[in-house]
């Protein structure tokens, strides 16, 4: 197989790689806020339970979680294994990444001074208004570098989907590598991920710059 066909075949999987990437971000970024708020709940049961769930999600391999989500329902309830592997992949990735994001959010939220909440309270802002208008924009600014870090990791983690044979770029590359007994597909995959992350770095750099109109 020529290098060109290799690249062409692997490119076909890029769409699926992007599906995992964007759908995971779309769900995990807001879901992380929910986790963070539950974790900071005044109700100690909710807070401790969320803390435990997050610790499990962060303390066990993403691949294990992916296998659990994909095949768990079959072993537990005898349900059929979903044909469209994108669904379990996105569910596992979203929950796992939401756990990581929630800890970043929590750190960011807790770093905002009490004075900001008090100033908002005195002016009569409701709790929701205070969070959305006053706290969140400042939190986003502060956590952007850490979030970028996670997004870069997510780009590379999409390759874990090969564990359930979802036809994303890396899975196809691995299949070619096996059938052709060649290491080349892995090099191609590496270049793909690197370019993808260069784009992520560019976009996030722009976002950081756009938000740095004020000093913290």
């Amino acid at each position, binding site marked *: 197989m020529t290098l060109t066909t290799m690249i062409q075949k692997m490119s076909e999987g890029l769409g699926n790689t992007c599906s995992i990437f964007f759908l995971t971000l779309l769900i995990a970024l807001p879901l992380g806020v929910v986790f963070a708020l539950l974790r900071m709940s005044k109700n100690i049961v909710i807070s401790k339970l969320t803390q435990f769930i997050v610790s499990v999600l962060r303390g066990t391999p993403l691949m294990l979680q992916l296998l659990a989500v994909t095949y768990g329902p079959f072993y537990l309830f005898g349900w059929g294994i979903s044909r469209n592997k994108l669904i379990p992949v996105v569910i596992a990735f979203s929950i796992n990444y939401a756990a990581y994001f929630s800890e970043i959010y929590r750190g960011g939220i807790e770093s905002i*001074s009490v*004075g*900001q909440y*008090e*100033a908002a*309270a*005195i*002016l*009569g*802002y409701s709790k929701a*208004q205070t969070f959305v*208008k*006053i706290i969140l*924009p*400042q939190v986003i*600014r502060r956590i952007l570098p850490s979030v970028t870090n996670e997004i870069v990791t997510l780009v590379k983690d999409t390759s874990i989907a090969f564990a359930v044979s979802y036809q994303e770029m890396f899975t196809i590359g691995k299949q070619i590598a096996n059938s052709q007994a060649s290491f080349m597909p892995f090099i191609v995959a590496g270049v793909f991920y690197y370019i993808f992350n260069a784009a992520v770095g560019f976009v996030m750099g722009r976002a950081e710059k756009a938000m740095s*109109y*004020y*000093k*913290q």
Partner: protein
Amino acid sequence: MNVLKMTDIKKSFGSNEVLKGVSLTVDEGEVVSIIGSSGGGKSTLLRCATLLETIDDGTITYMGDDVTYKNEKGKLCYSKDLKKFKKVFGLVFQNFNLFPHFSVLKNVCDAPVSVLGRDKKEVREECLELLDKMGLGDKAKAYPCELSGGQQQRVSIVRALAMKPDILFFDEPTSALDPELTGEVLKVIKSLAEEKMTMVIVTHEMAFARAVSDRVIFIDNGVIVEEGTPQEVFGNTKNERTRQFLQNYNN
């Protein structure tokens, strides 16, 4: 008419009783200064008045309406409609607490629009006028981080004024400023006093308290030790503890 009436306020943090039954009444147009050493309970009294802290015992009344009441079991409760009371007062903090991600204009305009639901254009014009009056006309588009401490504190005064409060509290408004910047902030507060703005000012600026207040209150160890006109408190001090405290300032 009493704008604010606090009676027999008690407040403890753990086993530390910070307010041991303090009463404070403020009439319309009156300027009251609260002085005293740090840890004496001045700021806590202000924080209780502005509902940032909940009191353990006593009553708080704004414009004749009760903020607190005792339920049938005799337990102290806060009114369900605190929003109504929050419109009555404003507070200027020691360290400004401006919103760093908002421009100066947005800092002062946002609450009247999104909390009081007032017309955006009208509020904007009013705020620009207020900023101009405070010598900040050219800073409307700036961000708080681009301003000096004195300018930031003046912005936070405008932010409080934009809500048109009936009473304005100041919690050591110049304690975070150097002497030069202190002067410009005090000048602004003085001009508000001349306009008959009702104000309660916690301050360590004795000369200022003497010049601007109708009444001076000395709080020590959680109780009001001495209270009277500036002439009475500064010129004809009755209490030994007050005299001791004021001596440190005269040196």
